[in-house]
């Protein structure tokens, strides 16, 4: 599954070509030609780079085109005339050399990581995990911003899809009605039937609210009063009920 996900991104194309990007390709050329990385003959390497990305079909890939443009720019800069003893002159290749070395270093680390991962893959952890016996009591919440951001990302992906509404008959939802009642009673001590059931509520909503009220009354979170039949129902929060 993970491998599949990785294949989804554009690096897949580059994977096929056995090159991880323009720097990798460039290093390959330097190695093949046995060139000194600190003294790259830019004009020659730029021409070869262009030929290679054309033959490899990478001449449409932005990352490779950017590198090609960079090489041609350095080539042009090196052709500019300069005086014999120009102290301020900077080799236009310096930045490229720095990046190539940095990339090479990173590849060395990749070799280390690959070896470590291979060693770890060759060992299995315990697969059977005994089911926990008890419902865990509420323990401190561990929340990370990253988790929240990932959730937002999931939401955005889903929310971007066109909404499709299916009409289904709904079962009672007493739990949410309980939530609504509790929420109302958080705001004030006394409430009326109208406060917990919206105007024009569907039958399942009315029934859910009624069951919720009865349930909460049973749990002692509120009391229900109705002066006369069909009169307004008053809902009063019990002070001993659950705190907010």
């Amino acid at each position, binding site marked *: 599954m993970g491998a599949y996900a990785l294949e*989804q*991104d*554009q690096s897949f194309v580059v994977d096929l070509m056995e090159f991880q990007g323009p720097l990798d390709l460039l290093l390959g050329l330097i190695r093949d030609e046995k060139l000194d990385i600190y003294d790259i003959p830019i004009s020659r390497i730029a021409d070869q780079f262009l030929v290679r990305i054309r033959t490899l079909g990478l001449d*449409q*890939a*932005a*990352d490779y085109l950017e590198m090609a443009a960079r090489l041609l720019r350095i080539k042009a800069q090196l052709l500019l005339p300069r005086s014999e003893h120009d102290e301020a002159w900077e080799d236009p290749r310096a930045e490229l050399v720095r990046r190539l070395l940095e990339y090479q270093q990173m590849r060395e680390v990749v070799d280390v990581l690959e070896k470590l991962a291979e060693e770890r893959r060759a060992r*299995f*952890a*315990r*697969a*059977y995990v*005994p089911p*926990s*016996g*008890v419902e*865990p*009591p*509420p*323990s*401190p*919440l*561990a*929340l*990370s*911003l990253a*988790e*929240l*951001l*990932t*959730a*937002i*990302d*999931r*939401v*955005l*992906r*889903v*929310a971007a899809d066109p*909404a499709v509404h299916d009409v289904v008959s709904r079962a009672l*939802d007493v*739990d*949410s*009605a*309980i*939530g*609504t009642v*509790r*929420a*109302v009673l*958080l*705001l004030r001590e006394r409430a009326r039937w109208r406060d917990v*059931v*919206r*105007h*024009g*509520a569907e039958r399942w909503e009315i029934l859910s609210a009624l069951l919720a009220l009865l349930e909460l009354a049973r749990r002692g979170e509120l009391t229900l009063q109705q002066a006369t039949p069909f009169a307004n129902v008053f809902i009063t929060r019990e002070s001993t009920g659950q705190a*907010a």
Partner: protein
Amino acid sequence: MNPLAKLLEAALFSSARPVPKEELASLDPESSPAAVQSALDELRETYDNNGHGVELVELGEGWQILTRPEYTEAIERAQLAVRPHRLSAAALETLAIIAYRQPIGRAEIEEIRGVNVGGVLKSLHERALIDVTGRGEGIGRPLLYATTPLFLEQFALRHLEELPRADELAVALRADPRPI
């Protein structure tokens, strides 16, 4: 232990389910059923005689290494003491929607998530991560939810503006190949 007993131990350890004897036998085609049985006996005796926290048991479906029951309670207690509780994906998504769209009513959240969020709202409210801040316009004047100061505290945010904008997030978390 003899080599076959060691192999069986590794295999039983890495299997998610009890392993039938035929499957254990297939680990080493050279070994006879009698050799497999005597290796199992050796493994069981090693666990029993050398004082181990685990034991080898034969269940209906096969053989399995299990922790001894007397340690279960201590292990569960230690896990609870150390492993913090995490919010479910559903709760996080609901919280994310409220954080970005507050104040927001339940119907609107359900519209975005496509599922009933009654239970989730309730538990977020119990955890004091959201609160009812008022009632909206429209049919039934729905309750509106918003995040609480505790929410900011839990995510180590100074204020809501520290959350990335939706468009930034898309760039940061999503595959986003440059235009060619």
